[in-house]
């Protein structure tokens, strides 16, 4: 997968996290997604459609999700309820949405699907063999990974 398709979402994640959490994150080393299983307890998936297609999965521990949701909501989250899940989903939605703005700046017009929250460890997420890069994002509130599996529509056609 082209790095230029991932960079817009890394830039977006940093901006959104700084805006919503008031914290400047650090980026860990990029990895490659070898299989579709996630070890995270809380995962948010967003589909990307248009001139670039694929998925973005943001995964984190329940503790990190609780901490991030608490900061966004402005009060402690004792149970990861529907409001906390909505906060994490909206964070992913903003990262995805603003990533599209950066993609459009390199001439790629896309849209995103509404986010879906998947809870549970060792969940198999079938990404239809789209190659993915894994970007660790490190915050004081905890660490999460952003898995970005995107291909340009032309690439997909050629592969088929």
């Amino acid at each position, binding site marked *: 997968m082209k790095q230029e398709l991932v960079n817009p979402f890394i830039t977006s994640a940093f901006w*959104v996290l700084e*805006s*919503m959490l008031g914290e400047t994150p650090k980026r860990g080393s990029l990895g490659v997604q070898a299989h579709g299983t996630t070890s995270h307890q809380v995962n948010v998936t967003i589909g990307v459609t248009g001139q670039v297609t694929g998925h973005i999965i943001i995964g984190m521990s329940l503790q990190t999700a609780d901490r991030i949701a608490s900061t*966004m*909501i402005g009060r402690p989250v004792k149970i990861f309820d*529907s*409001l906390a899940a*909505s*906060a994490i*989903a*909206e964070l992913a*939605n*903003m990262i*995805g*949405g*603003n990533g*599209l*703005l950066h993609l*459009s700046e390199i001439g790629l*017009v896309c*849209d*995103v*699907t*509404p986010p879906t929250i998947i809870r549970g460890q060792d969940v198999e997420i079938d990404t239809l063999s789209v190659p993915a890069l894994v970007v660790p994002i490190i915050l004081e509130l905890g660490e999460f990974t952003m898995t970005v599996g995107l291909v340009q529509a032309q690439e997909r056609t050629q592969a088929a």
Partner: protein
Amino acid sequence: MSKRILVSDDAMFMRNMLKNILIVEGYAVYEAANGQEAVDAYKAYTPDLVLMDLTMPVMDGITAIKHIRAGDPEARIIVCSALGQKTMVIEAIQAGARDYIVKPFEKSRVLEGVKAQIGSGKAA
């Protein structure tokens, strides 16, 4: 009597956040969780303003704006979306939106946009 605002967003978190910002300023707030609910709520309550997300299930925001404006060409609608591409902004304005706020936003940006359309929360 308070000015009335319909907040349409599929994210409960975002509806709560906007509601909290607006209620403090004296606005009355109704909620819709998707575009279809927004269209139905607009007909039922005829609010002074709608804050509309774009990416929503059941019916997206652009389609909802078109439906609302077809029934009320004077409807005041501000888009509040994570999608900030120029093409989306143009599409929303062409559909009838009067302003476009990109998430994440500052509270002041929301209030500035709302007050520019309908004034302060309490009617004079």
